[in-house]
């Protein structure tokens, strides 16, 4: 049996730039960012971080989950809510959107041929709450769902149980490449005929415990103006702005797409990954692993570099990270005589860590369907390092035919995904 083709048939998004498809597309068209003022909820923590990509309409800031609020029409039973991390309600909403947009019946969600891969860093906040309680009161006074709500596999445990998933399931943990890996392996499962349909669900908290440790790494921008804080490829970029939220994509085999008679958002043509073998936190200065990841993604997709007409860059607005990706893009495209349009939508969304790759895969899929190419916002003065790249600063009313999306995580893990217009 030849490899099955794989399509994106459903999307759910809860993000700083919108809590549904329409809102996200509108933000992309108008280059509207999702940042708001941030100050630590625990006011005794000294912090110079001023901005975050906030999720609107959800309030999951309370230490008590029964105080959490979320928009209509999402209702979550107490016995479902109690085992969720703070980003759980985002995913609940994303699953509902994704199932609806894919047009899936209950039986199509729950069967042996439908699985779910997830990515989330877990919840440092809940781990802190529960271990504090452990030290104070002992284990028998800790919430019985404390572990499943907080450790890194939490999205898998919760979503598999809640949506009665019977196929493959696993949580992926490679920091900012996590959901890229989840998408890649979900692609493989369908291409190899092991599953007919895969959900890929990714999410992150946004709170003191998720965000501020990155300040300790000197990875966050301390600017107070959104345009100066999150500005990938700009000369004065000095760190990223953190965001939380959730994204779910539904991937399906060509057979399923035909059987159900649905129109996909896009085709996921293939993917590639490779590692830097360089530094625990920083990317390789020449983008060594990312170059290989992109080339493998092209080979896996059967696409020549010249056929890529848009690259959604990982570029988070850090000095070193953007530089290394820029060099990798030059190597793979510019030096071969190609100049695909390039942008980083993190200028608008902020950097969602484990969420980033899935959010950008959803954004790319939406752009392929809607026929737009998102611009790279907040560039006032382009870093001369990137002059050779075709970085577009405004959103174009013409969509790409074949797009590539990059993600890079700690330890130099790099994933590239290739999508094609349907």
């Amino acid at each position: 049996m030849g490899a099955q083709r794989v399509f994106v048939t459903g999307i759910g998004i809860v993000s700083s730039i919108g809590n549904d498809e329409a809102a996200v597309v509108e933000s992309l068209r108008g280059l509207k960012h999702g940042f708001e003022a941030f100050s630590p909820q625990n006011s005794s923590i000294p912090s110079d971080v001023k901005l975050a990509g906030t999720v609107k309409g959800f309030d999951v800031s309370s230490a008590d989950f029964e105080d959490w609020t979320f928009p209509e029409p999402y209702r979550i039973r107490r016995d479902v809510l109690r085992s969720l991390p703070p980003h759980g309600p985002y995913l609940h909403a994303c699953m509902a959107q994704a199932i609806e947009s894919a047009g899936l019946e209950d039986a199509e969600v729950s069967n042996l041929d439908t699985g779910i891969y997830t990515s989330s860093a877990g919840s440092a906040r809940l781990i802190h709450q529960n271990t504090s309680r452990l030290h104070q009161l002992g284990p028998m006074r800790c919430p019985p769902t404390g572990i499943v709500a907080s450790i890194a596999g939490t999205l898998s445990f919760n979503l598999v149980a809640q949506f009665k998933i019977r196929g493959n399931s696993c949580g992926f943990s490679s920091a900012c490449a996590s959901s890229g890996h989840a998408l890649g392996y979900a692609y493989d499962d369908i291409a190899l005929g092991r599953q007919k349909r895969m959900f890929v669900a990714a999410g992150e908290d946004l709170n003191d415990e998720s965000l501020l440790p990155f300040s300790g790494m000197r990875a966050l921008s301390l600017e107070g103006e959104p345009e100066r804080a999150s500005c990938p490829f700009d000369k004065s970029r000095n760190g990223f702005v953190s965001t939380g939220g959730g994204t779910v994509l539904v991937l399906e085999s060509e057979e399923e797409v035909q059987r159900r008679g649905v129109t996909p958002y896009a085709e996921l043509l293939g993917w590639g990954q490779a590692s830097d073998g360089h530094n625990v936190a920083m990317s390789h200065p020449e983008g060594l692993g990312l170059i290989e990841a992109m080339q493998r993604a092209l080979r896996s997709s059967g696409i020549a570099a010249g056929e890529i007409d848009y690259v959604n860059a990982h570029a988070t607005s850090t000095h070193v990270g953007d530089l290394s990706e820029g060099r990798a893009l030059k190597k793979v495209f510019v030096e071969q005589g190609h100049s695909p349009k390039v942008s980083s939508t993190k200028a608008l969304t902020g950097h969602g860590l484990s969420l980033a790759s899935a959010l950008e895969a959803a954004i790319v899929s939406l752009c392929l369907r809607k026929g737009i190419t998102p611009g790279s916002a907040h560039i006032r003065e382009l870093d001369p390092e990137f002059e050779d790249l075709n970085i577009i600063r405004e959103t174009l009313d013409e969509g790409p035919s074949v797009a590539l999306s990059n993600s890079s995580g700690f330890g130099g893990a790099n994933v590239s995904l290739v999508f094609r217009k349907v």
Partner: protein
Amino acid sequence: MSNEGTNSNLSASPAEPNAEELLKETLKRCSPETITAALAFRQSGDVSLVPTVVLGIVERFLEPEVIDTLRNGDDSVKFMEDLGMDSLTMFEAIMMVEESLGVSIKNEELWDLRTVGDLKGFISGKLSGVEVTAKSKFYPIEQIAAVLPQQKPFLFLQTAEIDGKNASGTYAISGKEDFLEGHFKDNPVFPASIMLEALGQLGVFHFLATDESQADGAEESIFFTGADGVRCHRVCKPGETLELSVELKRRRDPMVVYSGKILVNGEKAASVEEIALIVAPKEQA
């Protein structure tokens, strides 16, 4: 029970909250009557307040649609079957009871608390210093499988409860039992012989779980020797749950005799006047 920890994420409170405030915080989603009763209990130690506190805490964990079942029901209301609570919710409720009333409940004690009455009686007993064991003792499948010599795929008992000379139990017919393929072709009917076997297994379980004088190895040498007065009243199909019960009639070593019956949805499905088991010494087995 919330995931609330130390509140270290919130602004630090200036003073250590007193016990009354902590209690109010613990019970913050319970009815005002529950909180009043818990505070009064803390003051007076009056055990008659316990049911109000316990029921108030249980109610706080229920989905809106089952609250009336608790309010209008009596002590026989079952937490899992009638109120839709799962074992995690039971843990949450028990932890709140422990914190509110200052009692401590062990995991193995929790298994026996099946009904509102069990819980109220148990807590009152704990607090008044009279240890009452729940009226009947409940056994989940794991404990049954650990006691009985019969094992899957020939184990026809999934839960069991023992109350003195009586034992009751359940077996849900899944439809996946291999023998249903041939009994009958394209028409799965649970065999009467297996229904009798299930009652025998419940008798064996009662014997092994209650007989403290038994010699080691009894579980390896207990056999079905006879049945009298067997009647079957209805056909049992996949999806139905057999409600089994046996009663110890007499014991004259090495023989032990039970009567038994099976209900399905309250309808009589089978009855047997006598099931005789023999507990043979190992070498004779």
